[in-house]
């Protein structure tokens, strides 16, 4: 082996264990990490922002003014209340639907399947309009003993104010989607984990609380975050029946001053901020339930 005379190492002559290796992050992966690529991307982004920012139709002054206008903030509050209430009712209802759907009783299972089929099939906008207009079809609502007329009844239009009608529509729709998300989480818990809890002498209820629920939560949280963001944005549909949510307020203002895009941007900024809040909460919850996950 004559290597001493030349300073060009013949790598091919080396045994495999002594050959130099290339870093694994090769090809496109490595190109995307180059500083020059970041610089180029930054320039393009800056150009796009500049183009929008200097567009005279943008009316930055109105955006800034309307962003915190009392009427917009009122709408924002309504949006938050509707979304939060529908989320809470939907979560509880979803748990019930998921457990019914997994019941060993065929009647209970069929009821859950029927609920899911109906509420996932009818578009949310249609559901909102149906609840809003229910008074034209069923003027009285209430509970009582069938065929006797004894019971508590009220005027549909009084009970189902536009606000309540929207809440009912969003919550029932939400329960259907949450039901399937929760069921997916419950199915992801291994049978051996449940059996271990039962074998230790836990009742079914305790095994559910101590073992099934926390383990299911881990796989429920990411789709739950998705679903809550969807719900938040779906609240904008209630503007069709004139509940004063963020979107209704924005529409109301641009109907009179014609600054359509600026007001849509105002609404978008608020939706974006709320979405960031949900995303952060999702991250916190994910970390909270990540215990024991093999990495």
């Amino acid at each position, binding site marked *: 082996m004559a290597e001493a005379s030349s300073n060009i190492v013949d790598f091919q002559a080396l045994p495999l264990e002594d050959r130099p290796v290339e870093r694994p992050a090769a090809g496109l992966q490595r190109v995307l990490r180059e500083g020059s690529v970041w610089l180029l991307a930054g320039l393009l982004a800056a150009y796009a922002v500049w183009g929008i920012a200097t567009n005279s139709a943008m009316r930055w002054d109105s955006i800034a003014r309307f962003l915190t206008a009392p009427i917009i903030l009122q709408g924002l509050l309504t949006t938050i209340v509707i979304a939060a209430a529908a989320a809470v009712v939907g979560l509880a209802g979803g748990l019930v639907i998921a457990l019914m759907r997994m019941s060993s009783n065929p009647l209970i299972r069929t009821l859950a399947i029927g609920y899911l089929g109906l509420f996932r099939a009818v578009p949310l906008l249609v559901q909102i309009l149906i609840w809003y207009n229910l008074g034209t079809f069923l003027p009285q609502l209430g509970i009582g003993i069938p065929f006797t007329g004894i019971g508590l009844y009220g005027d549909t239009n009084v009970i189902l104010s536009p606000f309540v009608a929207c809440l009912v529509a969003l919550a029932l729709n939400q329960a259907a989607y949450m039901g399937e998300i929760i069921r997916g989480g419950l199915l992801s818990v*291994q*049978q*051996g*984990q449940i*059996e*271990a*809890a*039962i*074998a*230790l*002498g*836990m*009742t*079914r209820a*305790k095994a559910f609380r*101590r*073992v099934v629920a*926390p*383990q299911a939560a*881990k796989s429920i949280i990411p789709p739950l975050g998705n679903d809550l963001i969807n719900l938040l944005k779906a609240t904008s549909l209630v503007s069709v029946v004139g509940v004063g949510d963020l979107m209704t307020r924005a529409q109301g203002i641009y109907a009179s001053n014609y600054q359509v895009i600026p007001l849509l941007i105002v609404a978008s900024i608020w939706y974006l901020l709320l979405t960031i809040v949900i995303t952060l909460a999702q991250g916190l919850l994910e970390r909270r*339930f990540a*215990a*024991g*996950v*093999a990495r």
Partner: protein
Amino acid sequence: MNFATPEFRNASAVPALIRVRNVSKSFGTNRVLDDVSLDIRKGEVRCIIGPSGSGKSTLLRCLNALTDFDSGAIVLDDTRIGYTERGSVLKPWTGREAANFRRRVGLVSQHVNLFSHRTVLENVIEGPVQVLGTSRAVAVRAASDLLARVGLADKHDSYPSQLSGGQQQRAAIARALAMDPKVMLFDEATSALDPELVAEVLGVMQALASDGMTMVVVTHEMRFAEEVGDTVAVMEAGRIIEDGTASDVFSRPRHQRTVDFLKDHSGFRTA
């Protein structure tokens, strides 16, 4: 492996702690347990061996009331499995009564896993704290002793996914022991383990046996059955075809099927 020969115990002198009488069970048309009768005495190490699918796991699950059976009876100590005495009649268990019964029987099996979202220590105190109502401080102290006994004193805060298979099974044994059970059931506790990990788990089981724990051990480890087991039952197709002291079953099997089965498992460990 180096098992001490168990001292001879005069089997008939001790009354049976568990009495299995004419138990039968079918899954559809598949008769999985066929008129099984068995006595398990206090302090006895009762091994159950037999080919795959012969009903060993099912029998064990009946002993822990994890599965019900179609006919026959099992009595543990003063409890008829599945029923509570009310006057002269026996009433079927409520869910809570079934749960209360299971506290008294420990189960370690390849399929009954450690809780993956809890650390080793949390796994061991879960039963005492949540089921028995022991205070956390007391449970932690007892758990530390148990974990030291199974050689996991330094693993309190590890999650199951951070343990080797043998360490997981030893932690599972500690979790079951924390309930202070009357009987320990083992269902192929070592069959998913690499050969070098089998010995450490069997060692813990052997130590438990010499402490006088009543144990029912379903195993493919013929050497463990022969050396640690007091009595061995051989199952085939849902029946117990041979039942006797370990030395009798291994050195003087009466049934040709037993001879065949032992020949197939002659190497002390099978793959």
